[in-house]
């Protein structure tokens, strides 16, 4: 499938997810869900996994996925983003699933992926990914083997340490933890319900997007990957996560643009529709430009990671930098063009604005991705 060839299959997938979200996660459901303690509806998540099958689109069929590739996953995430679906999109979909897919051996993948793909369980990653890449030097968890050295089987390890800003950290069933060992940084799986795991939910700006501090004190852990594979897989997960978040940003931006166009078309001031004023029209045009550029960048990222057609870090950072900037600008413009009403709690604009803000601060800020891009595109030779 050539880059930017949106096949009929992809169009159908998009239509299906959009319809599902409109029916089962309309704005009142989002608002009700975001006010709950968990911040998401486990049943809705399960239906996304089983009924729709959109949580493992990029996962091989062998491990319960659809084997449809990252582009398909991006399409689904875009639509979920447009509807602000509450759920562990960052923790499970954007990070844990790609991480397990890349880091685990077949047995591990068979053990964990099907449940995550079905939506029956959720997972997240407790690792320093906030800078836009995996920062091994910032790992704050230490792992100790109860036996000696590496083990083929993952049992017999305990982990200790504190990780801040873990996406979906309070609700996840499974925690994938980067931890320092005597043989370098390795990746472990920890049951969130185990002894020695303490989670402290954080109050988030975006109520639809939760975070937690996770503290391990001698929690039992299963080794998933030793240093070499762990580092590569964590780097990979950061990139896939960036690309999927970019797709979500495209969806949210598009939703705000549509909403704004509708508003300024129907609302009259000075005897004319607001949208007939050039200042309003041009700002809408700028929103359109931003969304379209973000769409190009995000899907280039998805195709590049899927087909290996570009430097993966560059492609991921292009996607995330462009889409973050676009979404925050578009959401801010949406508030402005709605006037006072856009500033109220009742209007959905703020939900998108907060999501845009949270997204832009998750898995690397614009400045951090710009720096990564500069490192690849400018600093060479």
């Amino acid at each position: 499938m050539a880059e930017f060839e949106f096949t009929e299959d992809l169009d159908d997938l998009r239509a299906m997810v959009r319809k599902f979200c409109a029916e089962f996660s309309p704005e009142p459901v989002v608002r009700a869900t975001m006010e709950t303690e968990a911040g998401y509806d486990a049943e809705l998540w399960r239906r996304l996994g089983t009924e729709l099958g959109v949580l493992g689109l990029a996962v091989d069929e062998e491990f319960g996925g659809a084997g449809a590739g990252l582009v398909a996953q991006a399409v689904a995430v875009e639509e979920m983003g447009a509807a602000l679906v509450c759920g562990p999109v960052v923790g499970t979909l954007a990070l844990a699933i790609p991480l397990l897919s890349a880091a685990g051996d077949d047995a591990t993948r068979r053990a964990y992926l099907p449940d995550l793909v079905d939506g029956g369980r959720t997972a997240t990653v407790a690792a320093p990914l906030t800078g836009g890449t995996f920062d091994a030097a910032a790992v704050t968890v230490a792992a100790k083997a109860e036996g000696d050295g590496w083990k083929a089987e993952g049992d017999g390890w305990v982990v200790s340490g504190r990780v801040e800003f873990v996406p979906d950290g309070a609700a996840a069933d499974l925690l994938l933890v980067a931890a320092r060992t005597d043989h370098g940084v390795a990746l472990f799986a920890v049951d969130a319900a185990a002894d020695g795991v303490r989670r402290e939910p954080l109050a988030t700006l975006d109520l639809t997007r939760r975070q937690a501090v996770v503290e391990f004190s001698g929690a039992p852990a299963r080794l998933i990957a030793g240093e070499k594979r762990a580092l590569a897989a964590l780097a990979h997960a950061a990139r896939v996560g960036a690309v999927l978040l970019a797709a979500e940003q495209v969806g949210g931006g598009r939703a705000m643009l549509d909403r704004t166009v509708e508003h300024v078309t129907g609302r009259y001031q000075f005897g004319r529709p607001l949208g007939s004023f050039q200042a309003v029209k041009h700002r809408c045009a700028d929103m359109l430009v931003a969304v379209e550029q973000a769409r190009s960048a995000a899907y280039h990222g998805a195709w590049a990671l899927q087909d290996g057609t570009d430097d993966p870090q560059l492609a991921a950072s292009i996607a995330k930098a462009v889409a973050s900037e676009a979404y925050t600008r578009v959401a801010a413009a949406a508030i402005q063009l709605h006037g006072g009403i856009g500033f109220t709690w009742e209007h959905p604009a703020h939900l998108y604005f907060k999501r845009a803000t949270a997204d832009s601060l998750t898995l690397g800020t614009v400045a951090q991705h710009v720096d990564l891009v500069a490192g690849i595109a400018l600093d060479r030779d």
Partner: protein
Amino acid sequence: MSIDAEEVAALARDVVRSHPPRAVPVPQLMGAWYDVGLTWLHFPVGLGGLDAPRTLQRAANRVLIEAGGPEPRTVNTVGYGIVAGTIVRYAPRELAARWLRPLATGEELWCQLFSEPGAGSDLAGLATRAVRDGDEWVVNGQKVWTSLAHLSRWAVLLARTDPDVPKHKGLTYFVADLHAPGVRVRPLRQLTGRAQFNEVFLDDVRIPDAHRLGDVGRGWQVSMSTLSDERLSLGDRVTARGTGPIGDALALWASRPRAHTPVARERLARLWLRAEAQRLTVERAKVGAAKGVFGPEAAIAKLVGSELSQHVYEFCVELLGPEGALYESYDSDLGDDEGPTTYQRKYLRSRAATIEGGTSEILRNVLGERVLKLPPDTRTDKDIPWRDVPRS
């Protein structure tokens, strides 16, 4: 008219000596202040003034504030800045006396019932109706974006008294008693979680004709005179370098040395420069205002200041990194967003800056049409009866 700054300061010192601001309750202090005529020096004697030039006001206020008294404007924000001048200009002396003293002392707060959900920037397109009934008017409609309505006793109100003439010509200006039957105030929750503004519903609210300010059908002109009072009061304000939003950013910067990248430093320096250029423009405007010269600086100040505040808090939230995505709490007693608070809340609150009190779009129109004298946009609503203007 022969009073000078020294005499004003002496009068002010007398008041703060006889009513030590740190010991006497504000209403009592500000009552004495009013009775001496120091509240609005340019108002008539007996109505809180001394018929003196308004340029002397700073001399009086400085004494008050240095002695620990309040910045007078903060006692009754809308009352001081918007209402008082209109009352003194349009109300009969007896009513003015009745209203102004408790306004000045803060015992009776005032708010402004102008904006409507259906009108937005097109204030003159408002739909709240006032129908005459003998010596009274009966008012029906809905107002919005009213700050302080839940605490206020009085409101100035703009209502449509004639829908059959062009929109600017059918408005009349009233004083409404918010304790009157038929007034319902509902707090309006904002995206910050708090409620700083209110919706106000008016159902068959009766207002005596005596509480009308200005002639029937002249409400627009009356409200415009109010706006120019607001502009005139610019000169009373104090701005210091590195305060306001940029001050917040500087404080954050100082507290986060680990976030000091050259790129962030440059971004903050550019924000600082914009804030400083803005501050200097206000300072320049003050000097002009003191000489009675009003340039475009007030509109520029609002336009630039509001957009700048958004950029400054965007910078702050990005500097916070992942922490920027946290929020203290949306649960609230529906209190307001003023006063010290978190960067994240200020970031959210700043989104309203370019909407409230004149959107940036309207301000650019004002600069273009009133300052640069550019030709007006094609208008289809100005000369037809309000009733026939297309509306959403």
